[in-house]
């Protein structure tokens, strides 16, 4: 699974970091940071929760 973060939409609510702390972190401004976007096996549920919980709808995921 791959996940994408729209940094233009992110406003730093932090729901993704709380839902999937191994995938998302904060930068020094408090906005979300995502690594290469590859979601390791076992973390899909967390990442899908992050997608779902972002109030700005800034995160999307696709399987494959």
């Amino acid at each position, binding site marked *: 699974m791959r996940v994408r973060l729209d940094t233009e939409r992110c406003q730093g*609510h932090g729901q993704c970091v709380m839902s999937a702390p191994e995938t998302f972190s904060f930068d020094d401004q408090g906005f979300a940071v995502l690594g290469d976007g590859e979601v390791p096996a076992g973390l899909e549920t967390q990442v899908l929760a992050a997608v779902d919980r972002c*109030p*700005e709808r800034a995160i999307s995921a696709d399987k494959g």
Partner: protein
Amino acid sequence: MAISDDEVTTERERALAAARDYNPYDVEFLEHEFETYDLMREHCPIARSSQAGGPMGAIEPWVITSYGPSTEFLQDAALFSSQTQSYPLRPWIPQAIDPPMHTSYRRIMNPWFTVDALRPLDGHLEDFAAELVDAMVANDRFDFIAGFADPFPTKIFCELAGFPPEDYERIMDWKNILMHCNDGHGRGRELAGALARELGHDLPDDGLLPPDAELAIRAEVGQRIYLYLGELLAVRRSERRDDMVSRLLDAEVDGRPLTQEELEDTLFLFFMAGLDTVASALGLIVEGFARDAQKRREFIELMEDEARLGPAIEELVRVHAIVLLPRRVTQDAEFNGAEFAENDMVLCPTMAANRDADEFESPHEIDFDRSPNRHLGFGLGPHRCIGIHLARRELKIALQAFHRACPDYTLDPDAEVERFGGMKGLASLPLVKG
């Protein structure tokens, strides 16, 4: 009206009338607040009010009560400007500023409010919460607002910002005049009335302050606050401390230091935004728990489990959202079926969007495990509450400390809860242990 027996038509008329008369500053409105928002959302989710006024100063605003359009509204800073021209003397930074300048100001302050930056504060928050709770619950009857909800977040914020603790009473009084002169807040009304008379206005003994008196006292208090902030800046200029006033003095915006006016306008916003919000949320949450012992017990059972506490706090903020967000339309536009004209005012009561059944299943129920919970209690878009992580920590620590010391309580049957509207909350919440 041709179809006089059509119930839907009647309901729609009631909804349009509710929108026309919409006045969230009126304490009576709060008695049927959520029924009114439900009615408006069903029949006229974007409706025109004929009301004016309140501290946010929105004249004949459009009111958005549904969730989807509320999110579009808050995310579109180009169509919906925060420069609403309803501030005392000068607009506050960065609340009343639009991008791109808004972004430059936020870049200065964002790092002060991150999770990592606030983490070292936890021990202090816990100690201070426990100290206030112990003193308060030493009595069997107590006012949760005076004993805890007001002093806890406010004194913490004064410390962080750098407002001297001995100025607390004065700062709270100014805040109460500016924010609560006409919303049912007893102390705010009393202080504002006295000041208005001092300034030569004839006033009725109770009821609303006339608009000219309200403008005059807002300008006067605004001026006093600016004077106070100017003096505080001068003191910190000669000797820096570890506080936000000092950091602002050393900050740069677009490669230059902030001007005196920018410094004052930023501190003015700190002053207002840091003093009321968490206090109001705490009061409403604990009032809800005093009325619903089952929900309170449910909360107490989960509150030591950090993984469940986070979502529970989000749910409490959703249900007890306090913020009304005003914007000004920048150009004629069709928006979700409504025809907005340039300079129209639009209000988003986040408490209405947060109870939209299209987004939240059983919206009037508290579900501590609700997921997803994309509520608007902290706002949305570029002006999202900068203190979101501070507020979450304070709410967690406050609710834990209080319920550890006092798990059982009810409303005091011999005293009244004092409520205010607008950016709503409680001025007093008398409770009895047991």
